[in-house]
């Protein structure tokens, strides 16, 4: 009886709230919506692709973004592997057949909960930009959506792609990458199999594989060690701005939170305004309840004016503010 009554009311609320949605007014942070698990297909022995269709039409994702998937109380973040331009209302994630078994324990046709696609690991340049993609293992899922999008737009930028994986049996999307290379002269993939070649992927090695690596904008998706090695190579030539790194948003990055605020407002206020439940006490820099670890960004101590920018430093949220407006500050408890 209640269900019958609420539906039209919800519709009216949607009309009144337009162009927003009613939940924006309720300040709810739960943006999850049900989606149907349409199909499961094998990619290789260790990976499977899940095709999902949200029950209500929703905004398209950007290739390279992550989405939170909830099944029966368990959740995880996954890179969306389908391209941007499909418009068929479906999206795909490619997952590990062992670790992520919980995802497809239910048969096709069952319902999962999907969050809003998130993350700024997206390909934005319109002007031709020489690009280097570096991917390790399963993290290739973060760039395959971009490559698929370029293909459906029939416009492949100049992309050199270095992919590292354990063995031939583990190579993901191998045939598809080869087909893309055959179709577009400007796409040049190189795959390194760790079974044959164990040399580290440092700047010397990059120089051998991609002669002009230093002048390229980089999209990097791989395990933490690989990220650190590549980031170091780019930091050495002072080109960090050209480096894009795939990181799942929210908690899966080890419980970190990312904040943006203005230089005059304590990060504690910014975090609370953004809806994060942060531990705090005196709010004047005495009790140290709100001490966190700085992971990324530069902050200023509002009392002394002292700047701190090294990852790993312990900072007090209530008396620190970002040095620059509009810059990400990432902190972990």
């Amino acid at each position: 009886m209640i269900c019958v009554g609420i539906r039209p009311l919800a519709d009216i609320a949607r009309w009144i709230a337009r162009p927003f949605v009613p939940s924006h007014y309720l300040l709810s942070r739960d943006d999850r919506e049900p989606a149907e698990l349409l199909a499961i297909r094998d990619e290789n022995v260790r990976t499977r692709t899940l095709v999902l269709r949200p029950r209500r039409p929703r905004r398209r994702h950007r290739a390279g973004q992550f989405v939170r998937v909830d099944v029966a109380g368990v959740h995880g973040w996954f890179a969306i592997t389908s391209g941007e331009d499909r418009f068929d209302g479906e999206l795909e994630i490619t997952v590990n057949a062992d670790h992520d078994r919980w995802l497809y324990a239910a048969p096709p046709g069952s319902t999962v909960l999907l969050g809003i696609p998130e993350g700024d690991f997206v390909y934005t340049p319109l002007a031709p930009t020489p690009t280097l993609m570096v991917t390790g293992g399963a993290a290739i899922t973060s760039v395959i959506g971009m490559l698929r999008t370029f293909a459906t737009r029939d416009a492949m930028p100049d992309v050199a792609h270095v992919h590292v994986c354990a063995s031939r049996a583990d190579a993901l999307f191998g045939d598809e990458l080869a087909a893309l290379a055959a179709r577009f002269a400007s796409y040049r993939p190189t795959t390194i199999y760790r079974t044959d070649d164990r040399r580290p992927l440092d700047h010397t090695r990059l120089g051998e594989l991609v002669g002009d690596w230093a002048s390229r904008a980089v999209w990097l998706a791989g395990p933490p060690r690989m990220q650190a090695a590549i980031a170091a190579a780019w930091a050495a030539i002072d080109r960090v701005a050209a480096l894009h790194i795939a990181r799942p948003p929210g908690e899966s990055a080890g419980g970190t939170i990312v904040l943006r605020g203005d230089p005059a407002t304590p990060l504690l206020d910014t975090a609370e305004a953004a809806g994060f439940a942060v531990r705090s006490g005196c709010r004047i820099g005495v009790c140290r309840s709100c001490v966190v670890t700085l992971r990324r960004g530069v902050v200023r101590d509002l009392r002394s004016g002292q700047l701190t920018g090294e990852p790993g430093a312990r900072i007090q949220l209530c008396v620190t503010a970002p040095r620059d407006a509009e810059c990400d500050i990432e902190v972990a408890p």
Partner: protein
Amino acid sequence: MTATEHDQLARSLDDLAAEVRRALGDADRRYIRRVIITQRILELGGRAVIFASLPLAAIGWFWPTIVIGTLSLALAKIVENMELGHNIMHGQWDWLGDRRIHSATWEWDTACASELWKQSHNIVHHAWANVVGRDRDLGYDILRVNAVQPWRFGFAFQPLYGIVLALLFEWGVAFYGIDFDAAKRGDLSGRGLSGQFALFRRKALRQLVKDYVLWPALAGPWFAPVLLANLAANVIRNVWGFAVIFCGHFPDGVEVFTPGAIAGESRGQWYERQIRGACNINGGRLFRITSGHLGHQIEHHLFPDLPSRRYPEIAPRVRALCERYDIPYNTGSLVRQFGTTVRTIVRLAVTHRTRSCAS
């Protein structure tokens, strides 16, 4: 231009954009908020004045009030579409980190669904600007706007289509979001095409219900005057949008390119094409805001995701670069740019000779 000169041009323009991006801050944030608030006041105020015209009819003030209300609503829709919707959906304000003023979430007050617009405009038009056969904005499939397009019988009536398109512009744009070309190429599946149809239908219905059912219904017995005022506001917005947008790429002096000529173009060549393919319109502050800064079409095509209020400030430096590398910088008054556009549409309806691309 030599390859080195193209590289220099690209570097100069990249540095210019990076400099502006570093300087973005509170002044920009205040600007966009102020435009949004002004637009909301104009819209709600306009609708309120339209409603007020009905009781005021008793003292003979019906016409002045309903005209003022309609103009205010039309201005609100113009500012929303041009300075807010178009620019926010380009991602010009994504750096704010505000989910409500973001290309991923903004929905605008026009018939075209934002998701379809971002595809047909941001991707197809901007990446392929003025490339014959790829940039669908080159005549929108129904007009012959450049002599390189071969004449066919249908074009003989194009001055008439132009007038109809101006009046119904939002519907032209909305329908145009459905990418039949991509479906023909095989890059958009059948289900993808019907997905685009569904987006079109949903947004069109919402716009129709909002302006022609819900708001008039709120006026009760005066349903018809409110409906007609809303219709008039939409048509005024359509004609203005049509005029500004047609001045972007069709006035005299604009250049077009063949797909062959741009194959493998460098970053510098891409920038050069964006400059040669776009036209600026001179105007003051009010014109800049009501045109969404599209009077700076050249700067917009170079840096589509740079906040529009910064275009006037970089324009002299872009122009200086054009002079240094001898690239024409096409600018003129609205009368000159729109006049030559209209002349071209009329002339190309009757002259059959096909020109080949200069490049």
